[in-house]
C-alpha cells in the first residue's frame, strides 16, 4: 500500500505535518498523509496514512489506510485497513480486509468483507 518508507509521497495530494491542526471538510482524489491533527470529515479516492502522532477526530473514507495514531470517528474503506501497534480507533470500521498489530485498540463495530463495505458505503452515500 505504501512503499519503502511506509508512506509513499508519490502521487500524494496532501500532507499534514506534525504540529499543524486542520479543521473542516476535506474532499480529495489522491493519497493523504497526516502526521498532525485533523477534525471534520476526510474523504479521498486515494490511500490514507495516519502517522504515530496523528490525532484524527473525523469521519474517514478512502481506499486503503494505514493507521499508527488515534482516530475518533467511523472509518469506511473500499480496500484494506492496517492498524499499527499503538493505534487507537474509537468508531465503527468497515473495510474489505483488516490487519491488526498487537497493541492496537479498537472500540466500535468492525465489518470486514467486500460486500459489507459496498453496502455500508452505499448506505452512507
Amino acid at each position: 500500500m505504501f512503499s519503502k518508507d511506509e508512506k509513499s509521497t508519490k502521487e500524494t495530494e496532501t500532507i499534514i505535518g506534525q504540529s499543524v491542526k486542520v479543521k473542516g471538510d476535506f474532499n480529495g482524489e489522491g493519497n493523504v498523509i497526516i502526521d498532525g491533527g485533523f477534525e471534520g470529515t476526510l474523504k479521498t479516492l486515494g490511500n490514507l496514512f495516519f502517522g504515530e502522532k496523528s490525532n484524527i477526530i473525523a469521519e474517514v473514507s478512502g481506499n486503503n489506510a494505514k493507521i499508527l495514531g488515534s482516530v475518533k470517528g467511523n472509518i469506511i474503506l473500499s480496500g484494506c485497513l492496517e492498524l499499527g501497534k499503538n493505534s487507537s480507533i474509537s468508531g465503527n470500521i468497515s473495510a474489505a480486509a483488516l490487519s491488526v498489530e498487537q497493541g492496537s485498540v479498537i472500540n466500535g463495530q468492525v465489518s470486514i468483507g467486500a460486500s459489507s463495505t459496498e453496502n455500508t458505503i452505499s448506505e452512507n452515500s
Partner: protein
Amino acid sequence: MHVYVYDTRLENAKYHQTLARIETRLTDLGLNGKIVRLNPMHNLERTIRDELRPDCTIVLVGNDSLVNMAINILIGHEALIGIIPIGKDNNSIATSLGIEPELAACDTLSARRIIHADIGVANESAFLNQLNITTNHALIDVDSNLSLEIEAPTEINVSNLVSLDLATDNKSSHEDGLLELTMKTLLKKGMFTKAETSQTFIQKNNFLVNGDFTALADNSTEIKAPVKISVLPKALKIIVGRKKVI
C-alpha cells in the same frame, strides 16, 4: 517586433560589456528591436503601455523584480514575454522557466518555445513563481473548506510554477490551475537533539493566510497580511527554455 526593456540597475557601467555582447548576439540572430532603458523618465508601466501591440514581444532584461513588476502590468494583455536574466542572483523565475542567463537567453528567445502560464494573485499583486511567508503563527483557509492552524516557526511557500523543495513528488505544472502550498514547521528541539521540521503540502487554488507577517512575492514585492491567494489560469504567454523545470 521585439522591445527590450532594460532594468534600471543595468545603467551601472559593470553591465555595459555584458549588454554589448547580448546586443551583438541578438543582431546575429535577427532579433534586434527597440531598446528602452528604464530610468525616472521612462518608467516600466508607461513603457509597456506605449509599446504594447498584438505582434509585440516584450523582452525583460533584468532579474525577478523586473519580471514581477512587468507581469503585474501585462495581466490581461495578449503580449508575448521573453526574459534575458542578467547575473546569477534573484533569477528564480528565469531558472524555473529554463532560461539561462545572458547570452544563452538570446538563443532561448530565438527558439520561441511558448507556454501559456498560470499567474498567482496575492491580494492585488500578481506573482509568477512563488510567494514566501515566514511566521510563528498563522491561520490558513483552504478553498473555504479547511482551516490550518500553525503555532510554531514556519516557512510557508505558495508555488505557481515549481516547488523546488517539495515533500512530495507530485509535480506542479504551469497550466494546472492549481497552487502548491508547502510549509516547513520547526518542531520543538531538545537541548541535545537536532531541530527537526515537519512538512505540510496541499495542492488547491484558493488560500487565505491570516497572521502577523509580510509576504514576499517573487522575491521582490512585499504584501501585508492577511493575504488572499488565488490563481489565474493560463493568463500569460511566455517564452521558455528547453530545460524548464515546470
